């Protein structure tokens, strides 16, 4: 992408009072974020200063490494699943008009507006108290049925992924739909008139143009999954070395009074989030000329 295109929305010159308003708004919010991080760093440095060899005993490092691995794995799987489900749903909502569309559209926002804890509770009930036995037939719950196949969801790593996915997918769907909304539907119509099926037009014409939006949706889903806490705690629990992810690690450390440890894990999460988001942005920029036909 050349500079003239990259900067086509830029406005040159001083903005006066209006510019001051824009700049001040940015400064105030950015300052809050920076201060949050600086305060955490300062807290940890002060703790290390008081007790130089303290960092090694502040945390159970092998256990924390397990938590990091599960966090990275579960967030990545949740993000991939979210994109897989968001692309068709986003396209459906963007392009088709059908009976009940507005109701369905509103329902897809439920995971976004509900308190996360409620989602965790609902997942717990779904897998442990549903469906009811009919005339004495059937198991007590979904997990009961799954146990017949040697599987179980509640309080397992699967529960972590499902809890993250339930919320993250809703955010991914919104992002992907907004991306499809920005692409002129006539591009598919033109492709169809010159010989493409509806599906071929989607994969040849719409998908390459939506590449950045889809990556953005995946990144948002990943970040959302990283920050998920309530549903994981309720549905998957916070068993050390089993279902513990970084967000629950912070909670466990606070519960045991180890504030230093909690702050160190928080900084680790900030670093992990920044590295992931910046890496994806860098890859997306490099892939600006990405083309399915090459």
């Amino acid at each position, binding site marked *: 992408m050349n500079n003239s295109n990259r900067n086509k929305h830029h406005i040159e010159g001083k903005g006066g009072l209006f510019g001051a308003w824009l700049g001040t708004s940015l400064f105030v919010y950015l300052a809050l974020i920076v201060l949050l991080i600086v305060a955490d760093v300062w807290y940890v440095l002060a703790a290390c200063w008081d007790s130089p060899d303290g960092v090694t005993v502040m945390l159970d490092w092998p256990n924390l490494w397990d938590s990091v691995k599960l966090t990275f794995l579960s967030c990545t799987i949740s993000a991939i699943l979210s994109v897989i489900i968001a692309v068709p749903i986003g396209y459906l909502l963007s392009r088709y008009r059908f009976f009940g569309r507005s109701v369905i559209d509103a329902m897809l926002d439920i995971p976004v507006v509900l308190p996360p804890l409620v989602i965790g509770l609902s997942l717990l009930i779904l897998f442990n108290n549903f469906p009811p036995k009919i005339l004495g037939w059937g198991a007590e719950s979904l997990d009961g049925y799954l146990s017949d196949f040697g599987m179980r969801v509640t309080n397992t790593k699967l529960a972590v992924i499902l809890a993250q996915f339930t919320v993250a997918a809703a955010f991914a769907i919104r992002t992907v739909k907004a991306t499809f909304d920005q692409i002129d539907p006539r591009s598919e*119509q033109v492709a169809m008139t*010159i010989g493409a*099926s509806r599906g071929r037009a989607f994969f*040849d014409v719409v998908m390459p143009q939506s*590449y950045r939006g889809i990556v953005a949706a995946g990144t948002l889903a990943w970040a959302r999954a990283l920050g998920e806490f309530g549903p994981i705690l309720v549905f998957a629990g916070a068993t050390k070395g089993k279902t513990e992810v970084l967000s629950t690690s912070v909670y466990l450390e606070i519960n045991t009074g180890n504030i230093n440890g909690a702050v160190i894990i928080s900084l680790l999460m900030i670093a992990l989030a920044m590295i992931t988001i910046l890496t994806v942005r860098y890859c997306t920029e490099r892939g600006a000329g990405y083309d399915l036909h090459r």
Partner: protein
Amino acid sequence: MTYIDNISVRAGEFILADVSFEIQRGKCIALMGKSGSGKTTLMEAICGLREVMSGSIKIGDVDCTNAAPKDRMVGLVPQDNVLFSTMSVREHLAYGPLLRKWKRADIDARVEEVADELGIKDLLDRQPRGLSGGEAKRVAIGRAIAAKPALLCLDESFTGLDEETLQEVMTVVKATIQREEISTLLITHQISEAKLLGDVIYQIKESGRVEKLILD
């Protein structure tokens, strides 16, 4: 030959009723009408992008009244081109033949031929970004005709071009459709465009009927 026989199309509350005309091979019909008169609706119906209420459509002597757009052998050039931002000019021209499962060598030869006809050989490796209005229009037309459609649909395709570019592009397009003997349906509200490209001019009346326009 293309036959539009007594088709009726609904666009919201408005109905275009009993529209009939035919386009001989290599000839151009210009369809005029005020904004909102249903010109684009009619063209969408012919391309298979909108259902017809009644009547029949034959394109290249094949009845395709209920066929999917991909099975109609048409090429569409929308008003603002709608080029695919991720495809190069070469890929635009190759896309139709590729979808029609032409052999690679035939596709390459056809791309060169169309690019030569439309004067865009130098642009083949360019992306749509940065093309001028006239260049983008030629690419859109090239994309539409590359697979040798039986009917070319130009939907107010020349709107927005300055006078000099308009004359230049229309001259090239006229020469191309005559050389390739493509039946063409031009939708426009400019009588000058209709006169320049059209062999016969029709007008959509307020009643929703289509009548042949007799010019002085």
